[in-house]
C-alpha cells in the first residue's frame, strides 16, 4: 500500500477510534463484552458438536447445507450451483475473499457484482486491497474514489460523497436486474435454531436474500449455540467495528421464503429465496481450533488492526487475504501453510500486545505468533538476520557483532 493510501487509512482509523471511545467504556458494552467472551469461548470449545447441530437444524428448516473441507471444494460447489448464470450479486464477505471466490467465478466466466459500496469501489480499483474488514475502502479518499468511479463507469462523477454514492448505486441497481443468485456471508450462525444472522447497513443483504437462490458462505468458526448468542456477538462486533450500537439491519435467515396463510398449507416461494444454500467452510479451521483455538474467538470487528503499529505502516500486506493483521498471520498457517504464514508477516509482528488490548475477545495474538515462530524456526523457516543474531548471542553473549 503506498504512503498516501496509508495516510488516508490511518486518518479513517483515527476517526473511528475517537467515535467509539466513549461507547467502549459504557457499562452495557463491558457487560456485553463479558457475555460474548463466554459465548465465543464456549463455542470454540464445542465446535464439532455445534456444527453438527447447526447442520441438522438448518436442514430441518429446509436449508441446503454443504460441508466444504477446503477452499477448492467450496468454490466448486458454489460454481456448480450458479453455472449458466452470466452474473451473480454479492455482499461484503471476508470468507469469500479468503477462498478467492470472485476471482474463481470470474475465471469461469461469471461476473460478480459487489453490492457493498466500499467493496464495489475497491472492486473498481484494480490496484488495491480492502484495508478494513468492515470499511474496505478506508485507504481511499474522496478524490481518489471519484476518479476510480468515473473511470469505471465511463462518465465524470463529481468528487462529492452524494454524487459518488448515487452513481455507484444506479449502476449496481441497473445491473441487479435479472440476477438470480445472491451470495453473502453470515456474521454468526445459531446452531440450536438453525439460523443465520447477517449484519449490514446498506440494505444490500436484504436484496441478496430475495434472489431466487441465496448462497451463504460461512466459516465453521462462526457458530454459536443460540440466536440470542448470535445477536450478542453481532451487537458487540458492530460497536467495535463502527462505533454505533446497532447496525441498520440484522437479517435472520432460517429457511427459504414460505407462507401458511391459506388454510395452514405450507407454500414455498413467496417473495424471498426459493433456495437457501449454506456452505460451511472448514479450510484449516478444525486444525486451528486444535492448536491455536484463541485465534478463532474472533468476531471480525477489525479492532486489532486499528491501533496495530505494523498494520499502520504496511496496510493489508500484514495479514492474509481478508484476515488482516497479526491474527490473520496466525490463521494463515492453518488456512494455508507455514511458508504462507511467514510471507503474511509472521516475523513482522513486534509482539507489542496492543491488538490483545484492543480486541473485545482479548485474543492473545503475540503469544500465538511467538509460539508459531518457534515451530517454524525448527523447520528452517526463519529470517536470515535472526540467524546471525542467534550466532552472535551464542558466540559473544550479545546479539551485536561488535
Amino acid at each position: 500500500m503506498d504512503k498516501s493510501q496509508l495516510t488516508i487509512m490511518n486518518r479513517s482509523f483515527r476517526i473511528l477510534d475517537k467515535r467509539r471511545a466513549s461507547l467502549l467504556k459504557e457499562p452495557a458494552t463491558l457487560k456485553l463484552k463479558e457475555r460474548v467472551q463466554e459465548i465465543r469461548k464456549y463455542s470454540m470449545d464445542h465446535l464439532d458438536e455445534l456444527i453438527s447441530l447447526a447442520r441438522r437444524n438448518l436442514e430441518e428448516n429446509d436449508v441446503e447445507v454443504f460441508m466444504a473441507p477446503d477452499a477448492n471444494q467450496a468454490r466448486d460447489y458454489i460454481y456448480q450451483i450458479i453455472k449458466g448464470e452470466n452474473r451473480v450479486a454479492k455482499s461484503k464477505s471476508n470468507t469469500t475473499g479468503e477462498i478467492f471466490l470472485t476471482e474463481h467465478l470470474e475465471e469461469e466466466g461469471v461476473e460478480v457484482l459487489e453490492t457493498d459500496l466500499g467493496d464495489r469501489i475497491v472492486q473498481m480499483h484494480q490496484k488495491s486491497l480492502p484495508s478494513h474488514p468492515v470499511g474496505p475502502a478506508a485507504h481511499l479518499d474522496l478524490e481518489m474514489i471519484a476518479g476510480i468511479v468515473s473511470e469505471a463507469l465511463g462518465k465524470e462523477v463529481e468528487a462529492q460523497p452524494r454524487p459518488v454514492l448515487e452513481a455507484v448505486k444506479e449502476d449496481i441497481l441497473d445491473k441487479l436486474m435479472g440476477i438470480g443468485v445472491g451470495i453473502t456471508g453470515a456474521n454468526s450462525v445459531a446452531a440450536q435454531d438453525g439460523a443465520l444472522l447477517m449484519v449490514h447497513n446498506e440494505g444490500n443483504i436484504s436484496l441478496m436474500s430475495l434472489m431466487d437462490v441465496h448462497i451463504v458462505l460461512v466459516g465453521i468458526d462462526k457458530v454459536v449455540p443460540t440466536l440470542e448468542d448470535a445477536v450478542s456477538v453481532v451487537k458487540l462486533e458492530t460497536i467495535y467495528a463502527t462505533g454505533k450500537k446497532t447496525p441498520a439491519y440484522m437479517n435472520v435467515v432460517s429457511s427459504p421464503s414460505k407462507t401458511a396463510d391459506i388454510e395452514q398449507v405450507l407454500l414455498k416461494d413467496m417473495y424471498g429465496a426459493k433456495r437457501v444454500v449454506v456452505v460451511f467452510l472448514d479450510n484449516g479451521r478444525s486444525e486451528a481450533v486444535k492448536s491455536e483455538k484463541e485465534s478463532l474467538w474472533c468476531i471480525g470487528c477489525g479492532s486489532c488492526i486499528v491501533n496495530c503499529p505494523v498494520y499502520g505502516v504496511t496496510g493489508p500486506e500484514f495479514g492474509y487475504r481478508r484476515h488482516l493483521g497479526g491474527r490473520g498471520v496466525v490463521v494463515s498457517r492453518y488456512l494455508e501453510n507455514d511458508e504462507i504464514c511467514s510471507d503474511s508477516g509472521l516475523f513482522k509482528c513486534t509482539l507489542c500486545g496492543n491488538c490483545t488490548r484492543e480486541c473485545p475477545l482479548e485474543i492473545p495474538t503475540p503469544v500465538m505468533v511467538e509460539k508459531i515462530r518457534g515451530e517454524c524456526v525448527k523447520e528452517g523457516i526463519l529470517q536470515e538476520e535472526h540467524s546471525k543474531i542467534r550466532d552472535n548471542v551464542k558466540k559473544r553473549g550479545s546479539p551485536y557483532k561488535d
Partner: protein
Amino acid sequence: MIYFPGCTARLKLKKISQATQAILDHAGFNYRVMEDENCCGSVLLRTGFREDAREVMERTFKKLKGQKLLVSCAGCYRTFKEDYPEVLGEPLDVVHINQILDELILDGKIQIEREDLKVTYHDPCHLGRHRGEYDAPRNIIKKRATLVEMDKNREEARCCGAGGGVKSAYPQLSEDMSLRRVDDALKTGADVLVTSCPFCVWNLESEKLKVMDLTEFIRRGIIRG
C-alpha cells in the same frame, strides 16, 4: 545488588549505562556491575529460537541465581520477570532502574532541580502493557519537568517498532513505526521524548526531537551538594 545493563546499554548506547552508574554512585547506592554479562535470551525467545534461548537462559541463570538484579532494559526486565519462571521454572529477583530511581528520589538520596521543560514519556511495551509499570517513570519526570502525555499513552501506547526481531529483519518497517511514534510526541509540543528502554531509545532517536533514556534525563537534573 548487581547491575545488568543489557546488550544495548552496554554496547550500543553506553551513555545509558554510564548515566545509570553516575546516578547510583551519586546516591551512594550499593551495587556492582555484572562481569562477563551474558544475554538475557529475550531476542532468541522472540525470534523463535526457543532451544537456543533455553540454553542461554540456563547459562545466564547460573550466574544470577540468588542475586538481586537491577536492569536498564525493559526487554531484559520482562524476560527475567516473566519468561525465566515460565521457561526454567525459576524466579529471579529483579528490579528495573525506574523503581530504584523512584525510591532514591523519595528517600531524598538524590535531589532534582526543576526546569522549564516539557517532556513526554513513551511507555516501552515490555514495561508498560506487559508488566503494568506506568507510574514510577512519570513520578520521576515530574520532579524535573512538566509531563505532557501523548494521545496514546500507558496501556494504549503505540509501540516504537523495534521489538520482536523486527528491527533486525525489517529495518525499514521499524523506522516507519518509530517515525509515527515520534510524530505522536511532536504533537504534544514536548521538548524531550523520554523513555525507559535502551532499545526504544535506539529506535526512536530522531533529528526532529531530542530522545533520551530516563536515566540520562535525570542525571542532568541532579543537584550536586
